[in-house]
């Protein structure tokens, strides 16, 4: 039993260490799977496409970690769409980013956004508000 226990502890330790280390990387530095991480240019292009038809709006650019699965991110769209000020949402799995377009009279509360993302099971690492 002892060798099995030792092996299990080793597996758990190795797993936990790699997972913890990952949080220390910034998004741009982290590029283990290039197919999963598009370039910054692609992210910019995506943002420009998102705001293309917007005017008199505010856009919250929300950096999210743990958003690795489409099925698991469904709640984000559903939750924010309940807000009458929300015009549209874009969930970008590859960049771990959510774009939320609000009407310009919305008083955006960063803490509220973080809590709503957390209610879906992910964590927010940064929010930038842009006026369109």
């Amino acid at each position: 039993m002892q060798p099995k226990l030792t092996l299990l502890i080793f597996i758990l330790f190795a797993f936990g260490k790699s997972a913890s280390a990952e949080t220390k990387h910034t998004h741009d530095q982290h590029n283990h799977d290039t197919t999963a991480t598009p370039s910054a240019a692609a992210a910019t292009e995506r943002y420009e496409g998102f705001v293309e038809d917007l005017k008199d709006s505010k856009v919250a650019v929300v950096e999210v970690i743990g958003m690795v699965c489409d099925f698991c991110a469904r709640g984000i769209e559903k939750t924010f769409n309940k807000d009458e000020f929300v015009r549209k949402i874009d969930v970008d799995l590859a960049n771990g980013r959510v774009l939320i377009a609000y009407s310009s009279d919305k008083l955006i509360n960063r803490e509220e956004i973080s809590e709503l993302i957390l209610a879906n099971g992910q964590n927010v690492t940064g929010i930038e508000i842009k006026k369109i």
Partner: protein
Amino acid sequence: MGIKLVGILLCLFAPILAARPISYSGGSTIMAFSNTMQDSVYYHYSPSYRFSVGIEAVSDKYTAQEYAYWRSTYLLNRKNTQHSQRNIYLQAGISTQGLDHHFVGVHGDWETRRWFSGFGAKNVKTNTSDYSEKFLQLGVAPYLGEYGDLHTWLMLKSKKDSRLEGWSTYPVLKFFKGNLLLEVGYDREIEWDSHIMYRF
């Protein structure tokens, strides 16, 4: 063989499993399972992302009985990183047949957009016998779909039911699009192992 060894080791130290047993806060999920041992339909509601409660109606093929479980699942631990998520869940259920028929279990998974691994173990006590179920599942996404696309996973599942002999290892295909998920596996001995889920 190596995969099986890791699965056995994990299950030795952990008493189960089911895919995504908790939804987002305020979300509901309905799912149906079918395999050689039982068919079931399970509905659960998640008051928060850490907890769900539900009921599962079971048609037990092994004992030719029908009953239901009042079930709950608790998210014991979650670790989010830029490219991965790891979860450990605890599960329990009490049968409508009485307190003597219940189960407890643990379920864990770790996934990136490309890779998936999961394990589970479940101990069931019934009025007539006790048994356990264990499994290990590994998967890879052959392509990375965008949000809203059809997502596909190629998986390998290894499962052990103490009422049957040995481990069964077989391929599983998982698809999801929008709020619908479908998972189908096939093995010559245990035949079909399927799971369909819808979130709302």
